[in-house]
């Protein structure tokens, strides 16, 4: 059951622009950061080689920091999706008990939001 839902979600995100836009942005940003002298991540002042462990660590930590924003984009998409698309009603009526408990990890998102809206 959990796997089926996961599969649906992966399939869903595979078809949305967001995934490709973010992947593209990250790829271009960090590709240029490592190849072009005009795009630089971290401090360029230090007297270290471009492939030094220090520089690589710098780039990787910057990727992690930026990926927070990407994560937020995906999360907010999941949070507002059912409000925006009008699927909230059918999903909350369909989802049965076990799934509901499973989804409670994001509190009250799928089950009771209508009460707060009205």
């Amino acid at each position, binding site marked *: *059951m959990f796997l*089926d*839902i996961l599969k*649906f979600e992966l*399939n*869903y995100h595979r*078809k*949305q622009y967001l995934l490709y836009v973010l992947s593209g942005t990250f790829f271009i940003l960090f590709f240029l950061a490592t190849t072009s002298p005009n795009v630089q991540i971290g401090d360029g002042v230090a007297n270290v080689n471009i492939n030094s462990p220090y520089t690589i660590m710098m780039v990787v930590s910057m990727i992690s920091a930026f990926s927070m924003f990407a994560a937020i984009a995906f999360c907010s998409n999941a949070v507002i*999706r059912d409000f925006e*698309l*009008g*699927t909230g*009603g*059918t*999903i*909350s*009526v*369909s*989802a*049965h*008990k*076990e*799934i509901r408990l499973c989804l409670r990890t994001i509190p009250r998102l799928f089950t009771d939001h*209508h*009460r707060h809206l*009205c």
Partner: protein
Amino acid sequence: MLTIRELSKTYDNGVRALNRVSLEVDKGMFGLLGPNGAGKSSLMRILATLQEPDQGTAQLDDINILEDKESLRRVLGYLPQDFGVYPKISPAAMLDHFIVLKGITGKGERKEIAEALLHQTNLYDVRNSAIDTFSGGMKQRFGIAQALIGNPKLIIVDEPTAGLDPSERNRFHNLLAEIGENIVVILSTHIVDDVSDLCSSMAILGAGEILLSGKPRDVIDSIRGGVWSKKIHRNEMQDYRDNYRVILSHLAEGETIIHVLADDKPEGFTEVSVDLEDVYFATLLGHGISVSI
């Protein structure tokens, strides 16, 4: 059988959506008719366990709808007014997702159910195209398909035919008539024809109250012989409105025809064969609910 007793709901902003609504609904299609803002959707959403009423009870056979929501959801099919779908997902995948959410996990079983429903709603040929490219009618048919998952005992459809063209509406009606034989189907609508075409019993909801309920034929009989029509000029409308109880006006070949309510035949009027629309507007008028006519 669905029994609703004294259901009331007042929203935080002071709007009284439902005021002591009581209803008994037998198996078959039940039409809930009312103007916009009458409280239809509120009632539907309470019955679909999406909203809490302030007071009252609702019972489907032996399930207490307001307290045992989980049990009700297992036998409930719901097509909301603003039914939405995920973009770029095929109906087959979306339906499969709903089936999983309903707790049916066997792969073969799921496929079987999905295919049967897609066949029933005539969407099998387009099962792999994106659902958000569908026309209004196809989307509504998909909505019915997802409402039918798991053999529900109660189906709630909230204004399903708004915005459908006549042929699609007809198709949708046939689909509803097919499923409405053995289970309770509640259809809320502001289109009178939906009810007169489909429903074996009905109620008129206005300003949060049940104004009239019964079988369409019986309620039509109740005012038979009391409705009269006349062709008038558009400018004379106000005079007639002041002097008669005008229940509705419509245009025919560019001329205005009014229907009025009177015990005896007024001068210059002819008798009309009463239909549900007359009953609907007469009821609203009788309760002082103004609808633009």
